[in-house]
């Protein structure tokens, strides 16, 4: 069958079973959009900015577990997408992004809307392609989806010159891929697994340190079983919230800069850290020389480069978290004695009783943490929660009662402000049954506010809950703590009329200043079933605590900040 390059792109997307493509057309990608218009397979969602298209596809992938697809034009269309690529790359999201490019003959001539897309994206994609021959296109499309979803997932860019999309050639979509240079290993070395199992039996204070890789490999069930059978307590990183489920008594909390006291003490005092798809990020470890000083480390990761990158590892295991954890569990099931770790579990419970995650509630002003807690009570299990980046993100991670993986979607690694709203769109498309809440702040939300229009146009009912402290809150917090309260460019007192703004875009808005109003607004927003925006006025100077100051040891937490 001979078809055009543009048709090939659509055929491949449909062959991969993709339901939604998020994108924005332009000159160099028009041939493909013409074919999108003509086909009846996937649905295209027109965002109002290319960055948002990539974030939406990213969140779609995170919630559905499938490969997300975004499409943009050349030049500025592509450069707008770069933040989205970098966000997905840092958090290992499977994504295929297709960008238009100037015709092959114009490449290198500084043509209109020409930019070196593969050059720019090389360091923020898992792999990228510039298609120079139509005969390569079917193979490249197939490889891109395969590379995106296999091994450690990540975004793949396909840059397609305009003349390639109009050219006609034979199309046979390959059934399989053969890339001799790319063979991810999933199984884990059995000898290493055996040694790790022995180490677990020897340990007195073992700790599961669960990372985003556990979500990516759908390992939640086996990890829960592993914890239950062995009696080993667990901490979850920002990227892994929901893997254990917060009602699980073995789930201690989140470690790191804004982790709970018990979690950080668990990391500091453990004698065996079992890392399941975590990568020892600096926001988790704090000062490295003081990190987990008494612990041997079992590091299970599908990416060998993560192992030994930050800390020395005693039991390195390259493989898929789900498969390796299952093998470890099989080895331990009959030999492990959960009673052995009882003292350790009790100690951690005691730590949590001494300094539980908490906040001082108030009757005069709404505390941001209260909003999150209340959200949990009102929507809880039935919600998917996305977030932007800053204080509200940390409070959401700390106080929302996550019960399952893929319930929580945030830009953990890159920390991309503006991620939340487009992510909420993608999350809603991926799982429409769930109420989607975007927990956001008055700083972040304006970075992709135009997506209110996309949501209204497509009837994507997501609820934005904005913790409005009239500050760029996280930076303000650092200025309070470390810069003698010189609030350089963080006062966001000048604001739009949020209710009018969202209503002008076709949504419904609420201004909330009391707890009662919040309940009413949220219930009404859910009932309205359209894009909603709840502007919650919260305590301006509330801080995210505990806090391990950057570069400090994990066990030296700032538990309160009194003077104001």
């Amino acid at each position, binding site marked *: 069958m001979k078809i055009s390059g543009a048709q090939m792109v659509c055929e491949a997307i449909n062959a991969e079973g993709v339901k939604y493509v998020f994108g924005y057309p332009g000159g160099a990608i028009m041939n493909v959009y013409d074919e999108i218009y003509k086909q009846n397979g996937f649905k295209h969602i027109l965002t109002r900015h290319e960055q948002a298209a990539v974030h939406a596809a990213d969140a779609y992938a995170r919630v559905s577990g499938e490969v997300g697809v975004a499409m943009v034009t050349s030049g500025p269309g592509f450069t707008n997408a770069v933040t989205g690529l970098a966000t997905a790359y840092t958090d290992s999201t499977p994504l295929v992004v297709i960008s238009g490019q100037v015709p092959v003959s114009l490449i290198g001539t500084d043509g209109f809307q020409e930019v070196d897309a*593969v*050059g720019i994206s*090389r*360091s923020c994609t*898992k*792999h990228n392609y*510039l298609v*120079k021959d139509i005969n390569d296109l079917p193979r490249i499309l197939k490889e891109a989806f395969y*590379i995106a979803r296999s091994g450690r997932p990540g975004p793949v860019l396909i840059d397609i010159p305009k003349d390639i999309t109009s050219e006609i050639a034979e199309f046979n979509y390959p059934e399989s891929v053969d*890339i*001799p*240079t*790319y063979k991810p290993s999933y199984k884990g070395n059995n000898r290493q697994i055996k040694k790790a199992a022995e180490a677990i039996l020897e340990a007195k204070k073992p700790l599961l340190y669960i990372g985003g890789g556990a979500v990516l490999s759908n390992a939640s069930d086996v990890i829960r079983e592993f914890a239950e059978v062995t009696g080993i307590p667990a901490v979850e990183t920002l990227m892994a919230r929901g893997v254990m489920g917060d009602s699980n008594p073995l789930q201690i909390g989140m470690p790191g800069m804004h982790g709970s006291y018990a979690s950080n003490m668990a990391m500091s005092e453990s004698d065996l850290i079992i890392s399941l798809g975590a990568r020892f990020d600096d926001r988790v470890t704090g000062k490295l020389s003081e990190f987990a000083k008494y612990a041997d480390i079992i590091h299970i990761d599908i*990416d*060998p*480069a993560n192992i*030994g*990158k930050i800390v020395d590892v005693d039991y390195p295991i390259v493989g898929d978290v789900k498969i390796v954890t299952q093998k470890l569990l099989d080895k331990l099931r009959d030999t492990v004695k959960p009673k052995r770790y009882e003292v350790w579990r009790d100690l951690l419970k005691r730590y949590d009783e001494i300094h539980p995650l908490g906040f001082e509630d108030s009757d005069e002003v709404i505390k941001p943490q209260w909003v999150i807690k209340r959200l949990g009570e009102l929507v809880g299990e039935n919600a998917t929660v996305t977030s932007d980046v800053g204080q509200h993100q940390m409070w959401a991670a700390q106080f929302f009662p996550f019960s399952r993986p893929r319930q929580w979607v945030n830009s953990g690694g890159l920390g991309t402000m503006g991620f939340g709203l487009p992510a909420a769109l993608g999350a809603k498309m991926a799982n429409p049954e769930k109420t989607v809440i975007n927990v956001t702040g008055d700083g972040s939300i304006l970075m992709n506010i135009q997506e209110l229009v996309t949501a209204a146009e497509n009837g994507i009912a997501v609820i934005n809950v904005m913790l409005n402290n009239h500050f760029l809150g996280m930076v303000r917090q650092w200025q309070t703590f470390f810069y003698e309260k010189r609030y350089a460019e963080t006062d966001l007192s000048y604001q739009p009329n949020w209710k009018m703004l969202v209503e002008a875009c076709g949504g419904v808005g609420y201004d909330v200043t009391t707890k009662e109003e919040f309940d009413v607004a949220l219930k009404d927003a859910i009932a309205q079933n359209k894009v909603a925006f709840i502007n919650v006025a919260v305590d301006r100077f509330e801080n995210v605590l505990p806090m391990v100051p950057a570069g400090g040891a994990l066990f030296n937490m700032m538990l309160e900040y009194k003077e104001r």
Partner: protein
Amino acid sequence: MQTVKRVISIIVQNEAQVLARVSGLFAGRGYNIESLTVAAIPGSNMSHMTIVTQGSKRVIEQIIKQLHKLIPVYKVIEHDSMVEKEMVLVKLPIDKDTNIANIQSLFEAYNGGIVNASKNVIIAMAADESMRINHCIEAAKNFKPIEIVRSGVVAMER
């Protein structure tokens, strides 16, 4: 942490961008390249890159793992026991008083010789281990070289 010098061979798919992917990896992650040579492997669709780098043990380990992650990289060899050669071309001024035999014997001692001559200059070549090439260049300075071009290292596991 103590830094070590390492010679790494990388076998890659011979395709567009591959050199940029490898060198970009070094630049982006702050690794050091002392020399880099690359050429197609005869009779295959692969190329052989030889990179001389230095760093702590952890950095060298990361370099190798990060190189492995690049999709077109087929194989990464951290050389342990190897034959290592580097080439240098030296352009030297001559006149009627120059003792060309001295130049000839110097470069012959380093597996080379005089490879080109004209009225006012000759070009001499040496091919040897990097350290010995340093010595050769040092000695050649007596002849007031006009230009020196080094090739970078190629290496082969024994």
